[in-house]
């Protein structure tokens, strides 16, 4: 029987920051299906936002307004306020821990412009900010190795919830196939997003909705799942991220006619409008036949920035262009297209990281969440760039604190270990015994295709209905997939199948949420309901799993300082 006071699932920025908060005098375990330094947080490039005012005078009030407006007024403003107010302290603490930042000539943390932010407040480390923070936190975890146990390459299958209280998780060791139950007083999910349901995505292969599905299965609704962000500058055909920082440094977006088309869509902010607006602009241009060579891509032109600036500020993405598409952005423009990037939705939490069933205001005792897998919601309908790294660290700390407080005063509950383990072992066996007439690869590709074309940047009723129908068909075919590897040792095929199962269900949830939200707001755009509808839809979607299928409830948006207004840039 494995017992820890607190167990954290996910070792990215949120997970590791939470661990540091708890480890001072509680027994903490961090579980990751990869290694901490492999977490997808490391792929973030552009920066982490805070109103430090190192480049231009700035204030948390401006950061708050930018975030709320960027979220198309779906953000819970009480949470946003605390989150942006905490930002400067969070950044300084990271720096004190040793995090490396690019600097101004007088030695302060440098800040650059970013989409949707009215001031340059993105603190960065060249174009590998996520990587810098990830490694800084990992270093701290190594420093605290005596008090934090890391379970590397362990997979989380399900949450153990009894009577509204979370008592642990059921996990398996990928390296040897053993299934275990971890008893815990507090469980924190920091499991990231689910962009892999889409064909073109910036997300790692590991971003597969495992955490959110475990929460759903435990009776917790998912909040705002229809809000998926498409990042404007994904590498054409591959989806690999080219940071918004490229535009922050002054890059242009050009259509097939060589025009800076953003003038039509966001004349004031141009390329630095929020991501949903830019992605829609790109998609509109391509749909109208104005893509480069009439094809499905746009040019990101950095040539005018010059070699020195690119080598200093954007060296990594320059190398990505060379390695993955043979284009050197110093000499030639980069071909880009919208790529599924961030999941605004997720496990509903309050502003302290406490998982809460919001339509009944019921906290799920002992269960916390932070980072991309959680929905507080600070990002509302659309996340501004550099706000996610901030979210992970701010709410990682908060969820850690909440989990710590809870665990300090709680006892271990009894868990029917045998029953929990058996359930998972039976799941494995069921997969191994399947019919074998279907190809998981085909099912996965079809899911990604239909989500991209029918639940992507532009959505409508007809396509969404087709999407849901297709997904349901795929879920049936999934039950007959062919397995080759039935072993115990490092059976990566088995885990890919489990992940696919989660993704098929998540995809259906996204599409269902999109079908039900008959308005356009932030990253969710309905061509049949192109306007924002504050009368009927200024509320959060809560998607439940019931025996009858998916059921939607709602919860209100907290509005404090900023009444919803027209969102133009």
């Amino acid at each position: 029987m494995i017992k820890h006071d607190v167990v954290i699932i996910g070792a990215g920025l949120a997970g590791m920051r939470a661990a540091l908060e708890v480890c001072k005098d509680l027994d903490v375990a961090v579980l990751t299906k990869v290694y901490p330094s492999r977490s997808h947080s490391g792929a973030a490039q552009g920066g982490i936002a805070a109103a430090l005012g190192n480049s231009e005078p700035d204030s948390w009030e401006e950061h708050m307004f930018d975030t709320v407006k960027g979220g198309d007024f779906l953000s819970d403003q009480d949470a946003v306020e605390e989150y942006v107010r905490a930002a400067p302290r969070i950044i300084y603490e990271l720096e004190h821990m040793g995090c490396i930042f690019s600097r101004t000539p007088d030695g302060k943390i440098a800040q650059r412009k970013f989409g949707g932010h009215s001031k340059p407040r993105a603190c960065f480390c060249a174009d590998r900010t996520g990587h810098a923070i990830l490694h800084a936190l990992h270093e701290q975890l190594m420093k605290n190795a005596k008090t934090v146990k890391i379970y590397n390459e362990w997979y989380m299958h399900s949450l153990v919830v009894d009577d509204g209280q979370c008592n642990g998780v059921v996990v398996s060791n990928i390296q040897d196939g053993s299934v275990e139950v971890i008893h815990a007083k507090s469980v924190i999910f920091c499991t990231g997003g689910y962009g892999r349901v889409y064909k073109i995505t910036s997300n790692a292969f590991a971003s597969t909705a495992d955490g959110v599905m475990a929460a759903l299965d435990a009776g917790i609704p998912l909040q705002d799942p229809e809000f998926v962000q498409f990042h404007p500058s994904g590498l054409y055909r591959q989806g690999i991220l080219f940071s918004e920082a490229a535009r922050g440094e002054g890059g242009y977006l050009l259509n097939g006619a060589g025009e800076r088309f953003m003038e039509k869509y966001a004349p004031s902010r141009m390329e630095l409008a929020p991501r949903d607006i830019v992605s829609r602009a790109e998609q509109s241009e391509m749909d109208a036949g104005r893509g480069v060579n009439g094809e499905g891509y746009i040019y990101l032109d950095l040539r005018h920035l010059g070699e020195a600036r690119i080598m200093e500020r954007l060296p990594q993405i320059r190398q990505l262009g060379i390695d993955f598409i043979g284009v050197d952005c110093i000499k030639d423009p980069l071909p880009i297209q919208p790529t599924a990037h961030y999941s605004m939705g997720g496990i509903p939490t309050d502003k302290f990281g406490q998982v809460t069933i919001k339509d009944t205001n019921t906290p799920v005792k002992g269960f916390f969440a932070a980072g991309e897998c959680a929905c507080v919601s600070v990002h509302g309908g659309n996340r501004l760039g550099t706000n996610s790294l901030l979210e992970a660290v701010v709410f990682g700390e908060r969820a850690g604190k909440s989990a710590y407080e809870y665990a300090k005063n709680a006892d271990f509950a009894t868990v029917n270990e045998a029953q929990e383990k058996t359930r998972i072992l039976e799941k494995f066996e069921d997969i191994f015994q399947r019919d074998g007439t279907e190809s998981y690869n085909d099912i996965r590709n079809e899911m990604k295709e239909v989500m991209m074309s029918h639940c992507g940047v532009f959505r409508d009723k007809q396509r969404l209905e087709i999407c849901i129908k297709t997904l349901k068909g795929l879920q049936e075919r999934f039950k007959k997939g062919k397995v080759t590897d039935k072993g115990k040792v490092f059976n990566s095929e088995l885990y890919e199948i489990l992940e696919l199962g989660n993704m098929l269900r998540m995809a259906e949830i996204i599409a269902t949420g999109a079908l039900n939200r008959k308005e356009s707001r932030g990253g969710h755009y309905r061509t049949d309901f192109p306007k924002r509808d504050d009368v009927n839809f200024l509320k959060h979607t809560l998607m439940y799993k019931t025996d009858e299928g998916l059921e939607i409830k709602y919860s209100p948006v907290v509005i404090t300082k900023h009444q919803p207004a027209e969102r133009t840039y």
Partner: protein
Amino acid sequence: MATFKIKRFNPEKQPEPYMEDFEYDVPDGATLLDCMNTIKWTMDGSLTYRMSCRSAICGSCAVKANGHAVLACQRQAEHLYDENETIKLEPLGNMKPIKDLVVDFTPFWDKIDKVKPYLETSSKPPEKERTQSPEEFRLIDDTSTCIMCGACYSDCHVLEVDDNFLGPAALAKAQRFVSDSRDEATLERVKNLSEYGGIWDCTHCGECVERCPKPARPFYRIKEIMTVALEKGVHNNDGARHALAFTSSVKHSGRLNENFLPLLSKGIFNIKGLLELVPIGIRMLLKGKIPPIFHKSVEDVDDIKRIFKKLNQ
């Protein structure tokens, strides 16, 4: 039609590894990782390897292709073919295979841990950020790009024969702190790194620089630590003495005094060390290979001395 010769290993099936071939028409622009995925997802689901980001930042997918470590997602398959349009895939070296191309990274992480890879400060931090100039940032810029992929560790020639060596990744990580202007433990760090298994055990083969998929280039980082160690007076070891004696020799005559160098490297009072040199000394003497005792300077040696002086050496 490209061929992938993959070294398979499944401890549940048989104790020995074996080679297996896969063939298919690789589309243009496919990376090695794309090929591995195609094989796994359409030909043999049991092919096992690590991968995640596919954009050269997470460091999961390092493997040996045709004998040299590469990051599978970063390299186009067609650039890796040998003359028979074949790629031989093996797990990373210097680490124990667990299954197929997955290896046990435990010793790798243990060594990272050994170099105390976190900022050490005793002074209280300021209210805001500690300042650091752009020049100081540049000293740790390259090493901080390391993604811990293990490619350098895999191909390190010293690790092949001496497992005690910390290895290129750990030493590059150490440099990130040795050269960080905010770290306050520099002297202690370079002292520890100058011990057996540290910087002076690097054989300069350049393999780690060649295999590093990022600008981290461990060997050059190791040299940077050496410079700091020598500056800080950590001289009581063979490697430091060797460097100092070498430089001093060139300062005096513009070239190497090969007779003095081994003696000074070991330390002229280091009887045990000097005794180690006796066998080779005798062999060289018997074959007339001892360099002339009377050591000549190069022509125009004064100009060389002038340069030394100008650089405060």
